[in-house]
């Protein structure tokens, strides 16, 4: 028991200084900032993916509508209807893009 106490007393007096503490601190802070930047980037990437998917969906839906319309009603094409439909779709897409851009600006 006495020997155990002696070893423990010696160990309590032993110090283990972290070498190059200033550099270590700088390294950890850099790693932390790097991780934060990577997390932000991933979040932005997800938003852009969502934006692109929604955009493609909206962009393609009027085209397919137009194609169907053209195929079915080749004889009496009502171009006004097609333009209205396209204008509404692209308008909606524009609003969506503006909203998502605003959201990205808030996040960054």
């Amino acid at each position, binding site marked *: *028991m006495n020997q155990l106490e002696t070893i423990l007393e010696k*160990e*309590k007096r032993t110090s283990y200084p*972290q070498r190059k503490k200033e550099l*270590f601190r700088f390294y*950890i802070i850099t790693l932390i900032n790097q991780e934060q930047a990577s997390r932000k980037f991933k979040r932005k990437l997800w938003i852009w993916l969502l934006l692109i998917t929604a955009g493609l969906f909206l962009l393609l839906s009027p085209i397919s509508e137009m194609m169907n319309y053209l195929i079915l009603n080749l004889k009496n094409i009502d171009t006004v209807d097609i333009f209205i439909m396209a204008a509404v779709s692209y308008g909606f897409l524009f609003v969506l893009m503006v909203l998502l851009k605003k959201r990205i600006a808030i996040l960054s």
Partner: protein
Amino acid sequence: MESDEELVRRTLSEGSHHFGVLIQRYADYLFGLGMRLTSGNKELAEDISQQAFMRSFTYLKSFNSQKKFKHWLTGIAVNCYKDLIQKESQYLSLNIKDEPNYTPHLEGNTDFFNLIKPLNEDEKVLFTLKYVYEYQVNEIADLLNQKLGTVKSKLSRAVEKLT
């Protein structure tokens, strides 16, 4: 001198540069703890310290300011130690023939390292915290999220092994 809790609050509200003060404050402490738990393996001790600081920053929002930051950080460092040991053992269990042998850089009070050699990881942690860092048993139970009775019984088993 700003308190740890104040620095945590400022890190959360103003940015990671305030965390640098906490790193500076506890770098020696965590490195020392790592050295003791790994029996003087400098590389592993540095890894533990690094991981503990990184993890503590990630979970800083969950820090309860009613508790001591040092205790919370110690709990995280112990978890990092257990994770690293697990990874190391998985690595060592692989039969890699062409890899060069890894020789850890050992230094420190070898008497102490030899003393705690017969203890398992859990016992090493408890024994070191209790008898080198002089934590109270209830503090150890709190920072390791273990039951008081479990800590007591593991500690007495560890002491029994060493006497």
